[in-house]
């Protein structure tokens, strides 16, 4: 059971969180102007790296805040968490 450090509530059990997949995937500026390919890319295609991954979590059972985390998908280790309005930190 992972401890996910909520930027507000601190470390809590993973069961309290909802996983949101890749972070930093912006909703397209003008979806109607996209090609079908580009739109499909936005809807269905997400990065799936082995190693550090910038992803979104929501602390649904508590403060209900979404935040970003950099977590190593190979080790489960959370390398950093940051709020939605903070820039992606550099983790070596």
């Amino acid at each position, binding site marked *: 059971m992972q401890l996910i450090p909520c930027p*507000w509530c601190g470390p809590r059990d993973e069961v309290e969180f909802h996983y949101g997949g890749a972070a930093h995937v912006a909703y397209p500026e003008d979806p109607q102007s996209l090609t079908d390919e580009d739109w499909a890319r936005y809807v269905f295609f997400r990065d799936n790296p082995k190693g550090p991954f910038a992803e979104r979590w929501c602390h649904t*059972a508590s*403060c*209900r*805040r979404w935040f970003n985390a950099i977590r190593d998908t190979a080790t489960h280790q959370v390398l950093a968490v940051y709020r939605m309005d903070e820039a992606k930190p550099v983790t070596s």
Partner: protein
Amino acid sequence: MTVDHPQRRSPLAHLTAELAATPVGVSLSEVPFLTQLNLRVDPLGRAARAVEEALGATLPTAANTAVAAGDLDVLWLGPDEWLLVAPEGRQESLEKSLRQAIGTEHGAVVDLSAHRTTVELSGALARDLLAKGCSLDLHPAVFTTGSCAQLPLAQAPVLLLARDSEMPRYWLLVRTSFAPYVAAWLLDACVEYAASGP
């Protein structure tokens, strides 16, 4: 306008006797009909200050803490969200003064008095009872008096408030639809403390 509610019914009224019959070391009771208002404002904004003035209480900005001001408890729920808990019957006046304080700034005030009911849990075994279903560290030096947390208790979402972490005495604020489950779960958790079994 306060209305007389002759038949008003609290979610755990039908379990009053069961809750009262807990073993030595645990006390359980429903605290029905408390006033509960959800407040959302920018903690740094002018409205927040006005609200504090109106309430005579600060809005705690430390996560998972509550402040008490007289008979009012202000519980941190999120970085711009609080639950105000007051004795029964205060929802309308409180809502009005909050809205007034917020004025034209962006905020939200929602009456949730009937959304959750409150279970008071106290006694020497209270902490053990909670520890059966709650992953938070309830050590009195960690979850101190005035700490609060939203989290699952077994399979139900609850809002936990340490009214007195030493005694200890807790409030569990439970969404009413989950209240019978939480009550049944707590009563079941008590079984082992009954001197000669259930």
